[in-house]
Structures are given as C-alpha cells and as structure tokens.
C-alpha cells in the first residue's frame, strides 16, 4: 500500500537521523505534491546534507544529483553545455543537458554559497519547470528538490526573497543534546559510519508520482480552506498597504489604529505561495492520516512562513513566529465568539443596518474583516443603500488605493 510506503520512508529516515522528528515528518509530507521543493536550514555539522541525502536516496535510489554551492559550479554542470563536435563539424549548436536537469532527485548543498548566476537558473527551473542554455529550452518534468544552507555562514551570497519563496517549506534543525549525541554514536556504529549508504530505496519515483496524483485529488473541507486563507491573509494584511509602501513597519505603523495587531510585527509579508504550500501540506496530511484539523494547520504554518517573511524584530525566527501563531489562534477564536463570519455571511445576502452596526464594531478591531466589510460598503454605496461618509473606511480614514480606484469607475 502506498501509504505504508510513506510511513516506511519516514521510519527509515528517523532510524538513521537523530532527533528533529517533526522536521523529518514535514520533510516527508512535503514530497507528496508535484515538483516539491524543501529548504533545510541549520548551523554547520547538524546533519543538513545527511538528511537531504537520506530523503533523496529513499525516493530515487541512485537517480539523484547533488550540486554543491561551496564549489565553483558553472552553468554546464547545472544546466547544460555546448556539444563542441556538433558545432565544429556541422555548425549546429547542440546542448548537452546536465545530469542535474535530467535527474528526478535534485539536491543543492550549501545553497547560500551558490553564485547569483546559477541561482537565477535554478530559480527559473523552479518557477517555470524548464531551463535555458544557448537559446535552447529543456522542459523539466516532475522532481523532488532539496536544498540546505547555513544562514550564518560568512561566505553567503544574499539571494533574493522571491527565490526563497519558491521553496515550499523551510525546516530548521537543532544541535544534539547530550543523550542524543550518545544515540548518534550508537547509530554510526550500527550502520558502520555510513548512514546514507545504508538507506534503502523505500519507494520508486513512479510510486511517488502515483501518490502525488492521489493527494492532488483530495477534497478539503470549506472550514480548512477558509482557515488556510485566513491565516495567510492575517500574515499579509496591512491597512496602510505595506507591500506598496517604501516605509515599512514599525515606522509605517506610527499612529495606526491596528498598531498592536500581528500586522505591526511583520515587516515583509508572506506571499500567496504560502497558501499554496499550506494547501498541499493539508491535503498530504489528510491523505496520510485520514484527517487534518486546524491545530495541524497551525503546526505546519511554522515551517511554511519563516523563509517567506521578515519581522520587525527577530530574536529567534521560529519562536517569534510560534508566538505570532499562538496570537493568531486566539484571534481566530475571538472572531468566532464575536460571530464575525456569521455577520458577514448575513451581510453578503443583503444590507441590514442592525447587522452592519455589529460588523462595524468588529471591523474596528480586525483588519482582515475590515477589508471584506469595506468591499461590501463600496457595493452598497453604488447601490444607494449607504451614503459616502457613513462607511467605516471614510470614518476611520482607511482609504485603500484599490478601493479608491474602484470608486472612480
């Protein structure tokens, strides 16, 4: 059974990889959708490369290629090189595509050291599923891509945020505790100091593709889809539209009504890809375990957000995001207690002054809800049900650019 194979894969990796069990579980879950990309971040010597190789070996056997950012990788090694004899004899530019392009399993060691040119090629591969060399294009089929990096490495290149955004999840590994060090030594003895060599191929890539098709066909409940979108929107929204502002929080938040909200802690918001990644993971959990609840969603968000956003103040990115997620959980519960979505549901059916008054009160404390209410207000103003000036956006001074433009039509 395919589910058992995934469980076995997880078991085989955990058997060879000390601690960080949640990270391993996330790593395996993230492989259950097409063209999966995973980033592993950890200090040096914690096992980033080992974990990457264990996964690649467990799924693709020997059909994987690892390029190393630490060495001077050239385009020929990553994308393709020109076939010189064809050029000399026939005057034809034939490209020999690199093994990295053709292999099902792709690994990038020390991603942070990858030069910007190679990074751009890999970025293009992840974005469009194709590579270009010498004016020729090669389509890249389904694959698994795992990269690792040590963010505190002094020789890092600063890669652009959109590049990191292409990674579905980012898992963090921690150093081993005292007892875990003993466990690692036992494991090394058990596997004759070759953890990766001892890793069996648990499933074939074709089986993985079959699983990916099954996972893609999983239907999610409206509640789960709603919470995914709500969670991502709460980590994006800003009544002053920070994504279009050159001034970022906390300076942008000066005097803002929502200064104490989650939005005030986030300098660069997450992208829409966060919702896509969370949807893939939620489907994968449902496929593997038969169910997925809101708590699972919050646990997974911890691995989907860290590489996609920047905070106004970061002490420890994981615990900072964990703290924001806990606040977010309380906020979602508050929304239910205040019946916000029920009010909005009623207002979607038609304008009702009694319900509108309650919705305005709720909007004064919730940016995401305010955005939805403001959209309805514009509709009611156009229909003559509400006067300009009576709406919350005018009264609170929330003049969103997109709504103003819409008003002008």
């Amino acid at each position: 059974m395919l589910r058992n194979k995934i469980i076995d894969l997880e078991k085989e990796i955990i058997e060879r990889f000390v601690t960080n069990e949640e990270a391993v579980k996330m790593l395996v879950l993230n492989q259950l959708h097409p063209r999966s990309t995973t980033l592993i971040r950890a200090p040096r010597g914690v096992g980033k490369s080992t974990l990457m190789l264990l996964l690649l070996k467990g799924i693709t056997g020997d059909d994987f290629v690892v390029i190393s950012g630490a060495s001077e990788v050239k385009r020929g090694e990553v994308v393709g090189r020109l076939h010189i004899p064809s050029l000399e004899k026939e005057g034809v530019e034939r490209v020999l595509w690199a093994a990295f392009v053709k292999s099902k399993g792709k690994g990038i060691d020390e991603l942070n050291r990858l030069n910007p040119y190679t990074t751009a090629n890999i970025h293009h591969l992840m974005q469009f599923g194709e590579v270009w060399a010498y004016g020729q294009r090669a389509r890249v089929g389904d694959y698994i891509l795992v990269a690792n990096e040590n963010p505190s490495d002094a020789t890092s290149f600063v890669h652009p945020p959109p590049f990191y955004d292409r990674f579905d999840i980012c898992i963090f590994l921690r150093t081993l505790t005292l007892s875990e060090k003993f466990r690692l030594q036992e494991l090394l003895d058990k596997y004759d100091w070759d953890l990766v060599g001892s890793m069996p191929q648990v499933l074939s890539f074709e089986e993985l593709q079959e699983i990916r098709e099954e996972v893609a066909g999983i239907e999610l409940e409206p509640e789960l889809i709603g919470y995914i979108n709500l969670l991502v929107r709460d980590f994006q929204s800003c009544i002053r539209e920070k994504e279009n502002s050159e001034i970022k929080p906390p300076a942008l938040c000066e005097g803002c009504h929502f200064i104490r909200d989650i939005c005030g802690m986030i300098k660069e918001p997450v992208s829409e890809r966060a919702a896509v990644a969370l949807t893939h993971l939620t489907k994968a959990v449902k496929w593997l375990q038969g169910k997925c609840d809101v708590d699972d969603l919050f646990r997974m968000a911890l691995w989907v957000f860290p590489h996609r956003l920047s905070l106004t103040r970061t002490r420890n990115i994981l615990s900072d995001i964990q703290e924001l997620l806990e606040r977010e959980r309380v906020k979602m519960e508050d929304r239910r207690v205040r019946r916000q979505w029920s009010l909005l549901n009623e207002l979607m059916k038609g304008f009702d002054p009694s319900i509108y008054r309650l919705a305005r009160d709720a909007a004064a404390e919730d940016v995401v809800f305010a955005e939805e209410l403001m959209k309805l207000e514009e509709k009611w103003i156009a229909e003559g049900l509400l006067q300009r000036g009576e709406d919350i956006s005018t009264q609170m001074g929330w003049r969103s650019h997109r709504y103003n433009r819409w008003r002008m039509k």
Partner: protein
Amino acid sequence: MESKKYRNFLEAESRRAPIEKRRSNSEERFWILWKEKVDRATIERGTSDIIDSLYFGEDLSRTVVIDRKVARIIQERLKGLEEENIRLHKRVRIMKIIIYGLMLVASVAVIALLLGS
C-alpha cells in the same frame, strides 16, 4: 462575483457560530443575538508561574492561571502532605509516650539505687 468556496466557508462558520435575528416589540427594530455554544473550542492556555513558585520559591505575578493537570498535581501534593502530617503526628505521640516511659523507668531506677545505698 464571490468565490463559491468563500461562501461555503462563511456558511460553515455561520452554522458553527449562529446568530439569531429577532424583531423587537416596536416592530421596527431587530435584535441580533447569540448564545455561547457548549461545544465552543477552547484555547489551551498554559500554566503560569505556579510551578516555579512551588518548587523554586520564585515570586508569583499578580494573576496566576493554572490548567487542570497542574491543579491535579497540587491536589495530590496537598493530599500527600496531609497524610504525612497525620503520620508524623502519630509518630510524635508514640515518641512522647516512649520518652515519658523511659523517664519513669529511669527515675524509678534512680530512686531504687538511692534507697538501696
């Protein structure tokens, strides 16, 4: 045009946390009301500094929140301490009796010695 899934989400949330619209006596106004449902999801709140205070003697903050597990630990601990207290009390009483007995025997022995000499 709103997405069908968005409408489904709002409908689902409305079913979980419904509101009621009731006409007031004046017939012109409406009341919007709702009741707290029994199955309302509760947020897991962690225990504040009570354990640190009990075991490490640290100062408590103004408000202390404890969860059921910690309350159970404290209950068990109080029960244990009370039992220990009763046991020690009994032991003290027995020791007192023994000491009085020994003192009596010693004084009888001293008197017997004095009379004998």
